[in-house]
Each structure stands twice: as structure tokens, then as C-alpha cells.
């Protein structure tokens, strides 16, 4: 019970990538935060929201977030030294145990847990390709970081302002058979497209899903993936395509 308590997190940096996209660096002591895990970020005056760290190393957690509403707006105004509160880690992370060729494919801010996964894969010397899809070049997040780890990194922009023009799912469609494992995270439509491609080509795939997380611990039912009975916060957020299929995500 007493397990899930808040920890104080001190803002070290809060960097604007582009108008509504930020990297927040937090000094916080938390054990065992793996790629794909999420934490709950609590702003006592406002709300508590789920975030999947884009890195956690040496007591510093990076949260890459998009301003979409009140809480993320508030976060964008945080300054160095401010304190917020986090609890976690929650959920089940990516399974990175298989030694093989990984494709990491992120839609928008969904890239956050994937770049963290890339770090882990690089540490293990597993080969990976990192594909990031963003609206335009201003939103480019982790391409440089992926390259510096020795991975292959491919950018897709919707407006063609840099890298390939189009959606990262285009890459997946064309190269799916070159990989042993696909890791994906993005908006629902993106995830669905990844799901269908991997289901049909029978490639191993894990997708980090997003729903409204309220309790974060599997009791309120808010984060259910319709039709499947699966809970994002407890059974996920990372699900294998085969699990989703078995539980009726197709319906």
C-alpha cells in the first residue's frame, strides 16, 4: 500500500523545442524507471497527468511533453529550481530482452519513450533504427541523439520541411520485413496503423497506448482500451500486437 508516494522533483531545465513542445529536466530520485514506464506528474494546484520519461539517468529525468491543456500549459511555465511532484514508475515497460534488429517508430511526442528505449538498446549493443514523425522540422526532437548513440535515425515531416515527407508509417510499410521487433508510440490513429501493419506481416511489435489515465493503478477503469478489457495503466501502456489482437482490438 504505502508504496506509491510522491517524490519532490526539482526543475533543472525546461527547454522549448518549438512553440508547444518542451523538454523538462527534473532532478528526482526514483528507482527502476524503464523505457515505456510512465509516471504521474502532480501539480498540486491543478492536476495530475501521466508522462512517459524520454530519459532517466543519474537522478535526472527528462520529460518531453506537448502543451495540450491546462496542466501541460502550466508545466511550460516552470523555471529552474521550481518543484513539482511525481509518483511512479507505473505500468509495464517495453520488453527489450530480445537480441535482434529493432525498429523504433514514434509519432509526435510519442517518440519520448522510444528514444529512452534507444538508449537502453545502445547500451546493450543491439542494432536499431529510430524513426521520428513530426509536423515540421521545428518539432524535430531526438534525431541527433539517436545518431550520437550509433543508431540509424530517420526523420519524417508532414510538410516535407526536412527529412522524408510523409508519415513514419510509410517507412514501416516499406521496411517492415527488415526488423525483428517494432516498438511504437504515437497518437491513436498512428498506433492503429502500426498495429494493422504488424499484425498483417506478423512482425513482433510492442505499442505504447494512450488513454485518459486517472487512477493509474488499475481500479477506475478510465483508461480501458475499448472492446478489449485491457487497461493502459495496469496491463500497459505497452502492449504486444498479439495481445491486442487476442483481446479484440480489431473489433
Amino acid at each position, binding site marked *: *500500500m*504505502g*508504496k*506509491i*508516494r*510522491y*517524490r*519532490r522533483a526539482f526543475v533543472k531545465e525546461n527547454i522549448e523545442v518549438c512553440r508547444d513542445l518542451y523538454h523538462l529536466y527534473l532532478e528526482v530520485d526514483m528507482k527502476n524507471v524503464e523505457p515505456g514506464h510512465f509516471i*504521474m506528474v*502532480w501539480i*498540486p494546484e*491543478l*492536476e*495530475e*497527468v501521466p508522462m512517459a520519461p524520454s530519459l532517466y539517468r543519474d537522478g535526472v529525468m527528462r520529460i518531453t511533453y506537448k502543451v495540450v491543456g491546462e496542466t501541460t500549459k502550466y508545466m511550460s511555465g516552470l523555471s529552474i529550481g521550481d518543484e513539482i*511532484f511525481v509518483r511512479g514508475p507505473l505500468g509495464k515497460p517495453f520488453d527489450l530482452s530480445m537480441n535482434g534488429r529493432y525498429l523504433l517508430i514514434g509519432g509526435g511526442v510519442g517518440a519520448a519513450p522510444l528514444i529512452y528505449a534507444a538508449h537502453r538498446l545502445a547500451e546493450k549493443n543491439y542494432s536499431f533504427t529510430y524513426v521520428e514523425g513530426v509536423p515540421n522540422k521545428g518539432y524535430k526532437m531526438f534525431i541527433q541523439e539517436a545518431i550520437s548513440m550509433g543508431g540509424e535515425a530517420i526523420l519524417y515531416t508532414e510538410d516535407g520541411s526536412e527529412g522524408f515527407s510523409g508519415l513514419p508509417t510509410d517507412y514501416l510499410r516499406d521496411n517492415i520485413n527488415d526488423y525483428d521487433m517494432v516498438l511504437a508510440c504515437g497518437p491513436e490513429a498512428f498506433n492503429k496503423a502500426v498495429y494493422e501493419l504488424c499484425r498483417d506481416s506478423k512482425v513482433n511489435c510492442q505499442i505504447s497506448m494512450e488513454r485518459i*489515465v*486517472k*487512477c*493509474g*493503478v*488499475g*481500479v*477506475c*477503469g*478510465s483508461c*480501458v482500451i*475499448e*472492446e*478489449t*478489457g485491457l*487497461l493502459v495503466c*495496469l*496491463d500497459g501502456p505497452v502492449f504486444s500486437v498479439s495481445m491486442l489482437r487476442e*483481446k*479484440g482490438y480489431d473489433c
Partner: protein
Amino acid sequence: MSRANLEVELSGVKLRNPLILASGFVDDDPSLLLRAWKAGFGALTTKSLTPKPREGYKPPIIAFTKAGYLNAVGLANPGIESLPHLLSKLPEEAKVIVSLAGSTPEDFRYSSEKADKAKVDIIELNLSCPHVKGMGMDIIHDISYSLEVIESVVSTSSKPVFVKLGLTDTYLSLVSRALDKGVSGFTIMNTVRAMAIDIESLKPVLSNVFGGLSGPAIHPIAVRMVYEVYSEFSIPIIGVGGVDDWTDVIEFIAAGASGVGIGSYLFLRSVEKIDVLLKGVEKFMVDRGFSSISEIRGIAIKR
């Protein structure tokens, strides 16, 4: 291992075992209810449904304390009209308790008329939510108002009606008077109003400040209430509160419960884990030579 018979009867409704999904736990989506049924519950309780859908409070809606959990979900629910949809995936044989919440006798009558037409086995009146103004404890603290609510449902419904009690000074007299009105049984108990202050921020954790305490913390209170009600009235009781392992299930039954609600057990545990409880209960029965749950029911009552 040899087997024991776990079946129980609750106001004429036969359950395959005494474990009942408590109201408010992963029970507001058809696929979740189906999953819970497949996990092996004897019956499922829906989230408390109000005449209109409710949003509920903003997160944090839960807090962890050393000995239990706090929640202030705020009766978030999709509304009574969603009931047929909620039950749409369940197989014919599934047993369902629909939980109703509201502010007035009219609210409850409105919802119970809908429930009456749906495939539900028991109607449970939640008069005891401790964190929503006008919808829970405010009702049960007022015995005559509670009786009006109860009457508005019992007088029109064809299903057995249970009242869900919270911890109040006068619950035993409510029980006695509710029985006179034709209530079939009681669900004992709801959460207890409580709060937690986070030591890092020095702020209340719950966005609503106050919430309901559940989990192991309240178990000894729930056992006492079940024991008191059963020893005085010998009526159908669903014991709920702090079941954390199979011994707590047996404890409720020994105190007089026929059904045992499972709620906070599901914090950070998937519904399939109730299997551990079922196996534990069965092993206990086999080891100790009990062949049916009814042999254990009320066995601890000191006369």
C-alpha cells in the same frame, strides 16, 4: 486437491462463488465487465450509476496510505441509460448487481425503473459514498430520508434490493427499519471519509481533499458491522472492505456474510488475480473439512 462447493445464495440468486466485484472497480465498460466475469467472480457490481452521466473529480483521485487507499472519484459514471450497453457483452449466466446513486427518491426511482428492465439480479442502493455532497453519507445520516429513498425503489422494483451501508452511528436502526420496508439485504460497507497530506508538498493529495478510505484499514470495521447485523437480523449480507487475502474472505463469512466484495484488492492487481483468493478459500475448506460455504457462515457468532 479435492474440491469444495463454493456456491452461495443471495436472496434467491445463486452465485458460483461468494466473490463479488465491488462497485467502482473496473466496471464501467462492457469489455471490463466481461473480463471480470471471465476472471471468475460470482457476481459483478456496476459502478454506481446516476440518472445523468457524471464527470467526477480531477486527478489525483486516489492516494496511498500505509494501511489502505483513499479515493475521491466523485461518482464518475456513464449514467443509468448506459446500463444495457454496459451489460451487452456478458453471457446469459452472469450475475449482475446494479449499483444506483442519486440525491432524491425520484433519482433512485428513475434509475431503478431502468434497472428493472435490464438483465440485473439485484439492485444495490449506494447511500453511503463519503465524498460527494448530497449523494452519499448525507443521505444515510438522515434515517427518514434514507427510508424514503428505499421505499421509492422497493415499492416499484421486482428485484431484490440491497442497501449499501457506510459507517454511521445509527446504522443498526436503519437496518431494522429498512427491513420493515422490504429491503432484502445489505452491502457492508462503503469507504470511510478520510484524507492524506503529502509530506513532500504539504498539501492534501486528493483534488477533492477528502476521500473514502478502503483496503485493509477498514476490514476490522467491516467485519464488526457484518457481525453486528448478522447476529441481530440473520439476513443476506455482502461483506466488503479490505479483503486482501483469502483469510479475509473466510473472516467475512464467519461473521455472517454470504457474499464478499472485492475492491481494493485490485489496486495494482489485475482481476484475474482473484483466482488466488478462490483457491485459498477452497483449500481452507478442504483442509478443514467444510463442504459448503453455508457451514462457515456466521460460525464465529458468540451467543
